[in-house]
């Protein structure tokens, strides 16, 4: 949905970007101010809030016992879900997950899964029978663009904040013991989304910029600066060298953020 105001602004945004400028005064390679808070929901095993400019995402982690997948009997299970709640934007409607929220959840899921972020081998209670299932629920509270990067960042922060209850097995039954331990984490993937407007590439698009973009491409980057997940989106295209350039941008930006976060 494109509002009337943005129709008027569209041309202005595109023209500015042609001159390497942006409506909010940022450089093409600048992120908006990023604020991260961990542990904001006490009832959840882990939680985090990320503010990326005016975009706000909360992620809550819940942990339950469940069955492992038959092909991975010695690994815990990760489930990622995203809700584009109607309070976050006039364009969001209540109802079952649509293709946008499913795509968002699957991009975040792939970054966490493929980077081997969680040490799932340590989530096994009884091989092939009982494991811990980690539910990552992404809640978008205000949509002002770049939900992918904000959600991915909030998800990893929430996982870092996640505590699991201790347990023991007595006579074949799992008993919860007092005390907690940290969810075993191995990697800290960072997702960087680059969009193409005209023939320019820029990071961290605002909602207005997303409305005029040709296409976007997101890269999840792991601790060794390897690429561990990619997703192109939007109904435009990239030239082959732009894809390579976007990968380099993602690796550079991820490195910068990693330094700031001490990951």
């Amino acid at each position: 949905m494109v509002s009337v105001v943005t129709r008027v602004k569209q041309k202005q945004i595109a023209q500015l970007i042609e001159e390497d400028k942006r409506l909010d005064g940022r450089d093409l390679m600048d992120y908006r101010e990023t604020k991260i808070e961990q542990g904001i929901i006490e009832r959840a095993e882990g939680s985090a809030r990320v503010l990326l400019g005016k975009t706000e995402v909360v992620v809550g982690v819940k942990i339950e016992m469940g069955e492992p997948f038959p092909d991975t009997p010695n690994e815990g299970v990760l489930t990622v879900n995203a809700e584009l709640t109607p309070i976050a934007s006039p364009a969001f409607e209540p109802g079952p997950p649509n293709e946008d929220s499913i795509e968002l959840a699957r991009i975040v899921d792939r970054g966490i899964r493929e980077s081997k972020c969680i040490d799932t081998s340590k989530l096994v209670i009884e091989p092939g029978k009982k494991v811990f299932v980690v539910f990552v629920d992404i809640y978008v509270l205000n949509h002002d663009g770049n939900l992918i990067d904000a959600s991915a960042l909030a998800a990893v922060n929430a996982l870092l904040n996640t505590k699991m209850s201790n347990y023991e097995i007595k006579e074949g039954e799992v008993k919860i013991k007092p005390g907690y331990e940290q969810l075993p984490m191995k990697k800290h993937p960072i997702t960087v989304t680059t969009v193409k407007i005209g023939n320019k590439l820029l990071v961290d698009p605002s909602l207005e910029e997303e409305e005029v973009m040709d296409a976007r491409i997101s890269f999840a980057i792991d601790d060794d600066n390897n690429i561990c997940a990619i997703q192109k989106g939007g109904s435009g295209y990239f030239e082959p060298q732009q894809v390579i350039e976007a990968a380099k941008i993602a690796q550079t930006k991820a490195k910068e953020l990693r330094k700031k976060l001490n990951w």
Partner: protein
Amino acid sequence: MNDKPEKLIDKKGLRLDGRKPEDLRPVKLEVGVIPNADGSAYVEHGKNKILAAVYGPREVHPKHLSLQDRTVLKCRYHMAPFSVQERKSPAPSRREVELSKMIKESLEPAVFLEYYPRTMVDVFVEVLQADGGTRCASITAAALALADSGIPMRDLVVACAAGKVDDTIVLDLMDTEDKLGAADVPVALMPNLNAITLLQMDGILTHEEFESAVNMAMEGCRKIYAIQKEALKTKYVSISEENKEEAEE
């Protein structure tokens, strides 16, 4: 379940099905296979068997989705319950919803959407048998079906994956390689405009490996593109020959 092979590439550098790293699986394409559809195509890519059909431009349903300045391209990617080892529920999975979106967005740049305002074009993809790389084969077939329907296009779209298996960058991963390999990079290309319309990846790659995988996938796309063009021509050559015979009679 089959036992997992220890190595996916043998000492001679050959893959499980005897291919070299840069080899495609056999690809067969056919156009105009569904008489009721406005355009259709069938692809066999390795053991993948996939049908694509296009209906439209037609009236938008539901009406509120209608756009004043262009047609609405809709896409549905669906796997038949019998297309995989264990029966797949026919209800659309989250994977299918995502892939439908990815396929739609990979086709959109090629179609002159603005030619048919206030209409809708449906692209239906049915996977009858899956063997790794179904999204790529689906895009190749769907683009052909669109071309067959006569909707004006800037270019065809053709897709192929590359990836990393053991320590080698290989083209066109089959199911086992996809599941046990280190990375999979599906790419869709508009070959004449040299533009990438789909790029995804899972697995772990260095920047250099990523670059060579993308390049290898684009090479694969160009090889399939030749087959795509041939398939399109074949249909119209056969039509013109039929007409000629009728005229002679």
